[in-house]
């Protein structure tokens, strides 16, 4: 890793500023030759001109130099903040390539930070998560791991396993010392505890997965009840066509919004009724598919009309085992609906009018609460577990279970040790592996360029 890498760290489009990152041996040479600063004091802001190899001024820039050992990558680094014009940035990048730099691969800066021992694997992943976080909660979790919380937890579990391993070793290597059955039981109990701690982490990983993906919320209901109107109100703009004629929405429309801690993809769908046209039937089929995939279903009914018998059974079948809310719309009009015969009468119900802002914001509040129902306050989480980490945890847990089986039989305890060692090494792969190239390639290529 002696070559110097360079990349644009900001989006490649017209903007106020653009940041170019440089890491490697040539950083100081570039500071001298292109930025006219042969010995920049580190971590200071330098206002200077960027001059090309042909000695023409390309831009007025801000340059910051980070010295080896203390920079993000642990190599000499430069950050050039120039004006955010793609043409200009291309010129500067080309000039840097001419000066012997090479364009960085996705995630290569972080990769260097990792191989140079600046960060461990969970921290590298936390950086990727910080960039790609889908919600405030995901951001917070990523920050906890960046602090090393997961690493600390893993190290702690590893040392607990090690203690039990050394107890077993003592039984083996000091047979004269008469270490009794009772001690053996203690080892078994401790390993059981460790195993359940791992299970806890794995379960936890599944749980917080909710913060790292888009949650699907689907609006359904008979035609003309105001689904599209509600959709537009929630997303805060007129995206879906609203019309007084029934059957306005034919295909579904979706839109991504942030609702507090989670990211929601909201779907407006075609009204459900006996189809009169081919196209509309297609739309209804799609609605059924969406419902199957949904994290939350909002059933919208028009409160000002009598209960629309005939459609609800079908929907009721679909929403079994789904989180759902019954929304009675058009509360500004006189009530005509009678829910007493409805299959939905036991659902959580809210009354709204698209003409009343208040009622819509309480609806979004309700959506959030329901999506996060099983996840308590943000304080509960002080680390994050992703899928890769989770599968390593599972392997470790299986190994511990296997060692427990050996210990329970109790006639050849030495065979429990390889499994404990395996567990420790599985846990290690979460934090610190440098020889699994395939995994690392996969991991770092999911980063964006310039990070």
């Amino acid at each position, binding site marked *: *890793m*002696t070559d110097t890498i360079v990349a644009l760290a900001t989006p490649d489009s017209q903007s106020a500023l653009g940041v170019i990152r440089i890491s490697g041996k040539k950083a100081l040479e570039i500071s001298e030759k292109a930025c006219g600063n042969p010995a920049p004091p580190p971590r200071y802001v330098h206002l200077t001109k960027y001059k090309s190899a042909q000695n023409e001024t390309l831009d007025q820039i801000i340059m910051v130099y980070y010295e080896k050992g203390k920079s993000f990558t*642990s*190599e000499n680094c430069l950050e050039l903040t120039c004006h955010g014009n793609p043409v200009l940035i291309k010129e500067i990048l080309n000039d840097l390539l001419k000066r012997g730099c090479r364009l960085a*691969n996705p995630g*290569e800066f972080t*990769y*260097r930070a990792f*191989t*140079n*021992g600046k960060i461990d694997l969970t921290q590298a992943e936390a950086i990727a998560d910080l960039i790609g976080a889908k919600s405030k909660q995901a951001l917070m979790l990523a920050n906890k791991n960046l602090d090393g919380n997961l690493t600390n937890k893993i190290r702690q579990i590893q040392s607990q396993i090690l203690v039990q391993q050394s107890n077993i*070793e003592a*039984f*083996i*290597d*000091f*047979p*004269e*010392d*008469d270490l009794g059955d009772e001690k053996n039981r203690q080892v078994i109990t401790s390993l059981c505890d460790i195993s359940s701690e791992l299970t806890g982490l794995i379960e936890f990983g599944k749980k917080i997965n909710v913060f790292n993906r888009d949650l699907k919320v689907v609006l359904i209901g008979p035609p003309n009840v105001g689904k599209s109107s509600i959709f537009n109100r929630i997303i805060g703009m007129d995206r879906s066509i609203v019309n007084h004629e029934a059957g306005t929405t034919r295909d579904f429309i979706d839109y991504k919004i942030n609702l507090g801690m989670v990211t929601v993809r909201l779907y407006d769908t075609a009204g459900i009724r006996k189809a009169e046209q081919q196209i509309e039937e297609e739309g209804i089929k799609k609605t059924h598919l969406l419902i199957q995939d949904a994290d939350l279903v909002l059933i919208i009914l028009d409160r000002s009309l009598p209960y629309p018998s005939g459609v609800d059974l079908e929907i009721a079948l679909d929403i079994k085992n789904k989180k759902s809310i019954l929304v009675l719309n058009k509360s500004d009009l006189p009530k005509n609906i009678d829910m007493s015969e409805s299959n939905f009468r036991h659902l959580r119900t809210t009354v709204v009018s698209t003409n009343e802002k208040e009622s819509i914001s309480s609806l979004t509040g309700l959506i959030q609460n329901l999506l996060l129902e099983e996840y308590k306050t943000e304080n509960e989480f002080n680390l994050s577990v992703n899928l890769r980490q989770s599968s390593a945890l599972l392997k470790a847990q299986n190994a511990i279970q296997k060692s427990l089986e050996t210990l329970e*039989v109790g*006639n*050849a*305890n*030495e*065979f429990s*040790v*390889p499994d404990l060692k395996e567990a420790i090494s599985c846990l*290690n792969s979460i934090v*610190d*592996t*440098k*020889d699994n*190239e395939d995994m690392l*390639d996969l991991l770092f*290529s999911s980063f964006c360029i310039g990070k």
Partner: protein
Amino acid sequence: MNIRNSKKNPYDVVVCGAGHAGCEAALAAARTGAKTLILTGNLDTIAQMSCNPAIGGQAKGQIVREIDALGGEMALNTDFSAIQYKLLNTSKGPAVQAPRAQCDKKKYQLRMKHVLEQSSNLDILQILVTGLLVKKGECIGVKTSLDVNIYGKAVIVTTGTFLRSLMHVGENKSEGGRLGDHTAKGLSTDFQKYGIKLGRFKTGTPPRILGSSIDFRKTQKQYGDENPVKFAFYDTRTDEEMFHVERKSMFHVEHNYEKISQIPCELTKTTTATANIISNNLHKSPLYRGNISGTGPRYCPSIEDKIVKFGERDGHRIYLEPEGLGTDEWYINGFSTSLPLDIQASALKTIPGLENAQIIRPAYAVEYDYACPTQLSLSLESKKIASLFFAGQINGTSGYEEAAAQGLIAGINASHKVLNKPAVIIGREIGYIGVLIDDLTSKGVTEPFRMFTSRAEFRLLFNHGSSEIRYLHVHDLANLISAHRKNKITYKIELINKWIKLLNNSRISLNKTYGDLLRSNQKFDYPSEFSSLSTGIKEEVIYRVQYEGYLKRELQNIEKFKHSEKIIIPKEFSYDGIPGLRKESIEKLNSIAPDTLGHASRIPGVNPSDIEILMIMIQKKSYHR
């Protein structure tokens, strides 16, 4: 005997010291064809068991069997002088079961002395070694106390605890490596002169008492095993190879190795009164007065240590072990101390059965120089002075077995060097001897080094019964066993493999093989042909089949391990400035200069991620996609 003391006609190999390491070294050198001389300060203490009269025990028992597989003498010598056998860890699997034997101390010595005397290619001389003869960085012989220089093309130092040794009994200090013996002073100075780093360790031994003063009604008898597991392998040997001394000499084959009459040891415990006496007199223990600077072994603590560190508990176990058939001297295992003689005596009297104990040999602590073993290559040759080899306690180890194993390897390699044959390096995937030498040379020692099974990452494959199988290939290089025995071992291996296949493939019921039943702990009858095989073969086959899954995994791990052993670190490789390597690691790597990546990985303070970085750097696998 014509001792060769001329430069022009040197010995091939000169061995300094005739303890457990020295004897094996001299025999191995002589047996592999080197003209060998062994020097000892005292002919009467050849192969002396300075501490307890027992060979084997956890991990050590396995080493002795490996020594036998390599053609060493210790196993036979133990079997011919054993007075009690015990297999340890029988409640666990075969891999960690270990044979142990109480020996007749004098008989052990005398037989070993006689083996040396009878050996062709081997001269013996009682003389004190006082220094080294070094020419152009190469050792060419030794200086002696009788003002003669003795020349050898290779020299093996096996001086045990005799370097600048100082014995402590209370405040009394005297020079000497063992009670009643001398000390070697000049050697330490010479080692330092040539840049060999020395360290200081201490060890201790308990008092010996008269058996007739023990009240056996208050102690608990510890009997040996009814069917003892012997140390040597007999089914592959001819009579000639078993009784090589006995045949030729005064040792008649009167010692029936098949059935010995075993005599019991005795068990008792320390009491509150013992603890009180010791606590009240700690200030008289040189250990606690800071008079002994060396580091002692943690796992074999003195009684002072035990009382201070572990308290009184429910008493500390004390084993009483007879030192032989022709003597009434008893060894008090678990009571090593450096307290003054009168305190030793009064503390002993507080132990049930020892109320009237009569000490006939006082306990003492000894501190001594050792030469840091990281200065040795894997052949046990010094990296500082060519043709100089080190083996045994001088390398910072403890234990007769560890010493003998090193002696054997140093003996073979000194001889091979002189005879221009390749060095014999035992990998740590082969057995405990490999682990021992690799640990010593890569990790060094911070306290007297004792082997444990847990030091061996592949110990599941190191069951004592498989030693001959594991070491057979070494004899392609080192010719220490007869062609007859080699053939027998080869045949044994074939037989074992055949039966592993048979048990795994032949069905006992419709859908179950013998292997299936064995692995699910079910009862069944073996084929009669199998039952008629020798116990050793049967045990090996059953072990391999029963734990097949685990053992396969170990074999896979060995493959991985071998891979990193194959990655050679170039001699000129520089650790400085490698990004990500910690300062501490760089210092360690620079000072030990490991040969392979595997070797580097075992240096303490160098952690796995350092190794991964090195792997990348050595293989120049820079980041590219």
